């Protein structure tokens, strides 16, 4: 299969990365060669194979229901590019 520019633009939209036309062109070229390489997998018949969900043969470990975190607003907000004393601040969302 081949990836056209429209597909790449759509995927970039999903990934929230803006691309100019030149970038779209170079990515189209790169991604097509990468996918050509990836598609070697099609040689393999995997119909009866279980997908691997986890490399560890263990069950999920759980923790006790205790309040052990939080109350660190200053630390949480410290690195934010835009904030006030209580909130993260972002440009308005257009619904």
């Amino acid at each position, binding site marked *: 299969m081949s990836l056209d520019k429209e597909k790449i633009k759509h995927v970039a939209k999903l990934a929230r990365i803006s691309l100019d036309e030149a970038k779209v062109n170079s990515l189209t070229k790169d991604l097509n060669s990468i996918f050509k390489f990836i598609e070697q997998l099609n040689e393999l018949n995997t119909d009866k194979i279980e997908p691997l969900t986890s490399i560890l043969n263990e069950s999920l470990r759980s923790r006790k229901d205790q309040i052990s975190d939080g109350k660190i607003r200053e630390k949480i907000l410290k690195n934010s590019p835009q904030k006030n004393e209580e*909130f993260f601040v972002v440009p308005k969302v257009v619904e």
Partner: protein
Amino acid sequence: MNKEKFDYFINSEKGKYEVIIGLEVHAQVLSNSKLFSGSSTKFGANPNNQVSLIDSAFPGMLPVINEECIKQAVKTGLGLNAKINNYSVFDRKNYFYADLPQGYQISQYKSPIVGEGKVTLDMPYGSKEVGIERLHLEQDAGKSIHDMDPQYTYVDLNRSGIALMEIVSKPDIRSPEEVNAYIKKLRTIMRYLGTCDGNMQEGSLRADVNVSVRKIGDKKLGTRCEIKNVNSIKFMQMAIEYEAKRQVELLDNGKNIEQETRLFDTKKNETRSMRSKEDAHDYRYFPDPDLLPLTLEEKMIDDLKKSLPELPDKKKERFINEYGLSPYEANVLVSEKEISDFYEEVAKLSDKKLAATWMMGDLFAMLNNKGLNISNSPITAKNFAELIQSIKSGEISGRIAKEVFEIMVQSGDNPKKIIESKGMKQQSDPKELEKMINEILTKNKDKVDQYKAGKEKLFGFFVGEVMKLSGGKANPQLTNEVLKKLLKG
């Protein structure tokens, strides 16, 4: 199911449509800490104060699951008569939003913790079953606040990462009334189980509503629209009514319904398309590599099964059989676990039937007026039972009982004490009554003569006089008997 009595349809010039409704209820799990972090879940904290580095998705942060949330989901599943899956997987649901710090929500997609189940609704036209498709665990998002600044949106992550149970119904619901009954039933079950407080004002219970319409007789389901995040039953009902009419109009005009996500505007009372969500339909689910598959041991499920309280359907049946209540009474009295507990305590100490009547009448009216609920009722179950017993034994009349009830509400006092200190005991001694009645008859000789001459209406006058003289304490039945006897003589 009792389909023929069911009567919610949309009639248009071109035909009669039925409305097919499925609900995705998001119920906040009752737990101290969040699903994957140790931050508190308490409602109403200062903004961003219940946020850990995990909830705000700092680089390198990893989730560790809260065992209590797993148990709560299993309990809820058991309460919904559902299949518990001892293998389930957490997936990432990927989309961007300011209040979704990870850029994905940890949820369960292909392998949920709970499978198919069912809920029984009591409708005026009989009982109706609604199928449960699945229940899965997922993280809540934070909150975007759009109205604090004209230019910017503020983000509070206190809710980010709190555990939710998403309970997905089958498209078995057919009317706004059934939506009401379904949500209330779910809430009752979860409150019995202690797995969700069901508080809709605080957002502990919200729903996405799937609506489609089809002409009566059609077998195929129509295209559905999903109305996102509606947080009250009233709004769900309004949204459904609007949406069903909109779809019927489109179909009548030969237009297609587009499958889309819509928003219910509570101010305009209409649903509208959420364009911004359009490309977000591609959530790119995949198993979360930071977590392993969740396996449940049979013993854990068994232990939880054993620990389950008696649930409303069972309890209702028992109330009918054991206490001789009508299905209606039983239904009302099991609607909240606290109410049923109160009732049972009262019923054990007094007359079962009278207790039900008085609870559903005077007690509920009083609580309702005062904006209270059964757990903070000014009258304790024990005192209430004594009041019922006093009525039943004839110690006080119904009328006096209402007075005693009022005083109990004011003072919180024991009814015996009130009756004694205020001398409100019913006069049930025939000799005492005879003495009192003779006195009245003597005083009203003229009226006695008129009565004897055939003016029988005057009987009521004598009763009134007896009540007046006794301060309402005369036993009415006995008064009647004695009066009749003495007037004859």
